[in-house]
């Protein structure tokens, strides 16, 4: 029997980004003893990188706004693959959660009346994003961190969990290791909230940090929970492209929201040529109207640069494919016409980022951008009201969960997502913990996982985990990125299968003490499994919708319009099942007709 430390909580929260920390607050308010596990230090999670803002129909500028318009925008942006009930809850509760955050200590930018200022963003009909310059994510995570700390919880920093422990058909705990000293740890919990974020590291050019290796979705999947819409990945239209070390790093949509325009290598403002019929009525059709919109949103239609992210990303891709790319093979994003003072006030961290890391002064020159992997719409299937997964005792909130964003997420909706559903998951997990006792941990599951974990340290020569990660990233970038075909997806699948067969041969030097190589070995498994499910789901969805663009099936398909793809681990392999999208009640369907 191996030597491990054991901790016991009513509710265990895995992940300390915004969703995790809001879940902590929710569970504490239910009277629970709460423990949190995070792979990084507290306050460093991916939430910190969110820039633009948190969408909520506060109607501080545009009094016509309300939850129904936010509901409509979110459903339309998601191409109706969203779970209507999830979106309804989201749109209705968003303002409450933002105002609550302000009472926790968040200091948003203000309107002249002293209320929370709101910014325009892609796909949102009205100015809707509560923001703090271009560092809104930092404001959110720090506020939640301080609030949760003041309430009191145990934080296990720099700890990686690799397996959910189950017994009698419910989740009873989790197992993993402390990164700092390699100590093995077992957490016993009555309920678990999964808030582990996304899985974008499987791609070469990504805005995601080392953490986004898909641990959360795969742990849930391994334990028998259902995944949903895993093919739906968001390519953010504007990632940095130069210098090479910065490739993939995010350029906030706020640049376009505040008046930035996209131009191709020939200097043409190409987005006017890429407006889909679906959005034509609400989009400006000439540069003059688009320019007027920046200062007068009431009487002008929005610029085409602010179409939903999937549309803009595809447009940039097409421009480059057709030979009209920028110097390094992307597009130019220019806001210099707004003047230095405006830019430094509205986009301070973008200004800094380009000046110091890209040698570009964005007050004078355009930025160069190309789509980057940014967000996972798909993930663990979660009930709208409680965030319950199909595995009893397990709840999922934030990016790891699926249902809210459908086929494409609108910018600004994720920061609100983590508040609304972080709270709901925390409270529901708290209720579950209060109604159930601890299960018993099955040692066989721990031993099995231990075997997988320790194999890379067993000595001798072998495959480097970085080699596997690099090959996977190259392949996914080439074959499963923005434009997909059956052929390219099959090629990706074949590589994934080959790489999976090498997993047991990974060897790394050193021991378990803060050893990135050893950590990367286990991460590679998560990355390969999540990639496999993504590819198989993408093969299954024979249509183009939102973030999923099939060159061999370029149109939307009426059957797939009404089906989510559910993936489940059964008898050692991926089982896919198309499941009807929940039927929207007539009164809500009315809203969509506007």
């Amino acid at each position, binding site marked *: 029997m191996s030597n491990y430390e054991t901790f016991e909580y009513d509710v265990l929260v895995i992940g300390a980004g915004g969703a995790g920390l809001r879940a902590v607050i929710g569970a504490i308010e239910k009277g629970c003893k709460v423990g949190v596990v995070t792979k990084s230090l507290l306050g460093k999670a991916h939430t*910190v990188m969110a820039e633009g803002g948190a969408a909520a129909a506060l109607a501080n500028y545009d009094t016509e706004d309300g939850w129904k318009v936010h509901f409509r925008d979110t459903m339309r942006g998601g191409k109706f693959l969203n779970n209507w009930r999830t979106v309804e809850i989201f749109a209705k509760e968003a303002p409450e959660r933002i105002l609550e955050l302000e009472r926790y200590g968040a*200091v948003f930018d*203000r309107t002249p009346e002293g209320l929370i200022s709101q910014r325009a963003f892609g796909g949102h009909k009205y100015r809707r994003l509560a923001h703090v310059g271009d560092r809104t994510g*930092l404001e959110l995570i720090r506020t939640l961190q301080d609030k949760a*700390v003041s309430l009191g919880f145990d934080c296990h920093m720099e700890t990686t969990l690799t397996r959910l422990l189950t017994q009698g058909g419910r989740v009873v705990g989790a197992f993993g290791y402390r990164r700092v000293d390699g100590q093995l740890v077992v957490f016993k919990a009555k309920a678990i909230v999964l808030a582990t974020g996304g899985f974008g590291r499987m791609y070469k050019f990504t805005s995601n940090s080392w953490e986004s290796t898909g641990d959360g979705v795969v742990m849930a999947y391994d334990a028998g929970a259902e995944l949903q819409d895993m093919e739906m990945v968001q390519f953010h239209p504007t990632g940095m492209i130069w*210098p*090479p070390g910065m490739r993939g790093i995010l350029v906030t949509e706020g640049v376009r929201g505040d008046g930035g325009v996209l131009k191709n290598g020939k200097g043409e403002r190409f987005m006017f040529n890429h407006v889909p019929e679906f959005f034509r009525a609400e989009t400006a059709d000439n540069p003059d109207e688009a320019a007027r919109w920046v200062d007068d949103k009431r009487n002008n239609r929005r610029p085409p640069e602010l179409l939903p992210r999937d549309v803009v990303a595809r447009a940039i891709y097409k421009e480059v494919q057709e030979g009209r790319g920028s110097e390094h093979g992307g597009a130019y994003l220019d806001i210099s016409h707004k003047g230095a003072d405006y830019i430094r006030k509205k986009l301070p961290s973008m200004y800094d*980022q380009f000046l110091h890391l890209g040698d570009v002064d964005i007050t004078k020159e355009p930025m160069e951008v190309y789509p980057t992997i940014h967000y996972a719409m798909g993930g663990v299937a979660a009930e709208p009201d409680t965030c319950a997964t199909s595995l009893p005792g397990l709840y999922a909130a934030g990016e790891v969960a699926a249902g809210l964003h459908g086929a494409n997420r609108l910018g600004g909706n994720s920061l609100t997502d983590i508040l609304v559903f972080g709270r709901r998951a925390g409270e529901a997990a708290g209720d579950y913990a209060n109604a159930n006792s601890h299960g018993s941990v099955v040692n066989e599951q721990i031993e099995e996982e231990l075997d997988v974990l320790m194999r890379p340290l067993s000595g001798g020569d072998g495959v480097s985990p970085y080699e596997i990660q690099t090959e996977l990233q190259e392949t996914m970038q080439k074959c499963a990125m923005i434009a997909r075909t059956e052929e390219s997806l099959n090629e990706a699948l074949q590589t994934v299968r080959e790489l999976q067969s090498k997993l047991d041969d990974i060897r790394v030097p050193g021991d378990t003490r803060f050893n990135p190589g*050893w950590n990367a070995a286990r991460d590679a498994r998560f990355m390969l499994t999540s990639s496999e499910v993504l590819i198989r789901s993408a093969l299954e969805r024979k249509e183009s919708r939102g973030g999923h663009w099939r060159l061999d099936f370029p149109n939307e398909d009426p059957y797939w319009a009404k089906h989510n793809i559910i993936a489940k681990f059964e008898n050692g392999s991926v089982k896919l099942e198309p499941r009807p999208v929940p039927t929207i009640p007539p009164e809500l369907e009315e809203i969509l007709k506007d």
Partner: protein
Amino acid sequence: MSTVTLRVFRGDSTSSEFRDYKVETAPGMVVLDAIHSIQKNQDPSLACRWNCKAAKCGSCSGEVNGKPKLLCKARIDELPQDQPIVVTPIKTFPVIKDLVTDVSWNYEVAKQIEPLRLADEGSTEPLRMQQIDVDRIQEFRKCIECFLCQDVCHVLRDGQRKDIFFGPRHMVRFASLEMHPLDTADRRPFLKEHAGIGTCNITKCCTEVCPEHIHITDNAIIPLKERVADLFFDPIAKLFRRR
């Protein structure tokens, strides 16, 4: 393809050495890119924290040629190329391994700071605050907790007196709360008695290294010192204060 040599601290607080690594350079490369290249191609056991790689999270703090920096913001082409680039962990905190230090003390200190207290606790009404009144605390809230200011603070670094001073990071946090337009708590006695505001001798080293360009000394620490002085040392006020 040109190369550069990185001289990296390897080991922990009990035994350590410097090891040299030759790394191929690329345009715009930063020290963190070089560390990743070493991990990937030469030694995967080299320990270093990082997350966002865009100077937003404050994870990758270290010292480059003796200067405290975020490794993700330290451009290689701005450093002398004819000598090895020396990369060491931040000095104020105990080394765990290689470039990773034990910064847990900061999180323990943070727990002691009284959070925001609104007068109408429990209400759900929107707050009313003017932009001009929140400008100054928004500066403090830019802090990314990289702890570089803690690294260069004389009280913490040279004196190793974590027992008497919370350090600049937490002074910034105090300032963001004390200057919040709607906060009603009074943290001045705590600042004087426990957080050690008096021990700062305003050398401004913290301000110089702040990657978020927060004017830590001028805008946070000195005004806090003044507020504490007003409360405890103002001779006129003392006459009128009831004992």
